[in-house]
């Protein structure tokens, strides 16, 4: 599948924003992050900015962005619509959380924090389901896709929260959470890759054309001599050597290195911890962009079978 920059950026950016919102709401409820207004405004503000930038970026993928509001109507059947509704609904408690934190209103901040955390988790779950519900793409129609989206959002959000908390000298709890989640994300993504690498294509040229009863089927003449929308969008090809390199970048820079750095932040704290947290955020962002780009680039769609584009690189 074609890795459209707007969608790659959107899912990484809003995933981190919702992760940050989730941990802020949850940890603040239990009093595990600083309770002062400055920290709350910084963390909640960053979360909202990331979510809004992400959602705005996603509209860049639309052919008619001015009609984006229509996407809220079909939540009964469409995961994309559900994601939109969940995102819009989550803005209510998240906005109130921001105001409550700014005004130091503890009574409002605690319930709004919990509601925001729930909204964030539901929104990211819907994002994952958009991909996981597509039977046409075996790398997406996979039981680990939704857990990956949830875990990577939670991980990147925890890393961001640790960075912000480091300025208040209170990074220990989010850093410990991020270290554990980073290790889990590393393992989960490795498990996902080994599973999809061993998977079977949804269709072969024999099954897709129904001509298998004659024998093996080979493409003779394509329907068009130039490329088209289907080939550009659905038959994106990536060189095996690039994919292997990007997988290493995603696993090491995206998950392993930030997890280690978060462990050091947990142990060191202070200014050193702050500097390490900045490095962790930078690495995690780069790694997650590579991971999300690969999520598209390595995905194969059944329509490419009709064009004779192989499932395996």
């Amino acid at each position, binding site marked *: *599948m074609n890795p459209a920059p707007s969608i790659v950026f959107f899912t990484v950016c809003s995933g981190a924003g919702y992760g940050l919102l989730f941990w802020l709401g949850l940890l603040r409820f239990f009093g595990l992050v600083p309770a002062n207004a400055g920290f709350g405004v910084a963390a909640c503000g960053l979360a909202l900015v990331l979510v809004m930038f992400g959602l705005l970026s996603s509209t860049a*993928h*639309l*052919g*008619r*962005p001015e*009609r*984006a509001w*229509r*996407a*809220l*109507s*079909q939540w*009964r*059947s*469409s*995961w*994309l*619509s559900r994601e*939109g509704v969940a995102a819009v609904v989550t803005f209510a408690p998240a906005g109130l959380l921001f105001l409550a934190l700014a005004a130091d209103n503890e009574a409002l901040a605690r319930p709004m924090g919990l509601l925001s955390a729930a909204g964030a988790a539901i929104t990211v779950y819907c994002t994952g389901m*958009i991909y996981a*519900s*597509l*039977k*046409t*793409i075996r790398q997406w129609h996979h039981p680990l896709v939704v857990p990956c989206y949830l875990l990577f959002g939670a991980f990147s959000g925890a890393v961001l929260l640790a960075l912000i908390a480091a300025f208040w000298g209170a990074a220990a709890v989010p850093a410990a959470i991020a270290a554990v989640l980073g290790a889990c994300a590393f393992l989960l993504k490795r498990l996902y890759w080994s599973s999809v690498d061993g998977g079977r294509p*949804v*269709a072969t*040229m024999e*099954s*897709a*054309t*129904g*001509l298998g*009863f*004659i*024998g*093996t*089927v*080979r*493409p*003779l*003449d*394509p*329907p*068009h001599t*130039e*490329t*088209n*929308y*289907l080939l550009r*969008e*659905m038959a994106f090809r990536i060189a095996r050597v690039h994919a292997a390199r990007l997988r290493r970048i995603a696993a090491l820079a995206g998950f392993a290195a930030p997890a280690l750095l978060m462990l050091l932040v947990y142990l060191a704290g202070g200014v050193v911890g702050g500097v390490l947290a900045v490095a962790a955020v930078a690495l995690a962002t780069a790694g997650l962009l590579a991971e999300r780009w690969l999520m598209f680039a390595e995905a194969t*769609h*059944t*329509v490419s079978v*009709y*064009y004779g584009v192989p499932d395996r690189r």
Partner: protein
Amino acid sequence: MTSLPQPGAKKLGLVIDLDTCVGCQACATNCKEWNTSGHMGPLPDQHPYSAGQEGVWFNRVHSYEAGDGEAGRTVHFPRSCLHCETPACVTVCPTGASYKRAEDGIVLVNTDMCIGCQLCAWACPYGAREFDEDQGVMKKCTLCIDRIYNEEIPEARRVPACVSTCPANARHFGDLGDPDSDVSKLVAERGGFELMPELGYKPVNRYLPPRRAPKVDAGPPKDAGPLPSQITNPLLRWVDKVLSR
């Protein structure tokens, strides 16, 4: 609404005969011709008169080689919307622009509501939907809804453009929900099949398999005499010609 309607009795669709299709591309061409000014038109082309030309087509004709040796054959394979009974392209649509008609099962896009998110194209396993980059909306086969119900044209011509133009009579249009219709009988008689039924979208269109080539009984080899061109003597060549009649 992108929730699917209660399935109706009428299931309009195409039956495509892979045995007789000659791959002439007339169906694709006439489809483009009719539909570019039809219900879901225009069907734009990018760089139509230079390198890198491409455009929106509702019908694409692939050619394949199937089998090897004597059993092998060339099969031309038109690919278009199959108007599935449970189309994922409709249910994934976030806006309600994609819909399936209850009355005849035709799957359409309301291009005034489409936001161009292209999720429907990802959800369709058959590559039936193509994005119009000029209008920023998704387009697809309408089963020539503006022909089949068009009372301005003679009744005999109220069939999809691809069907009306096929010179090999390889395309048939009708109600596949009615077991007594001509198309249903044709499917039953020829063993028509669905594409990728395992995905569960219940395509309405059917493909008729290429007939198996009749076994030719070669028999014992004929007595191999010299070819006429190998006889150098003109008189003997004339005798050979007369006797060979």
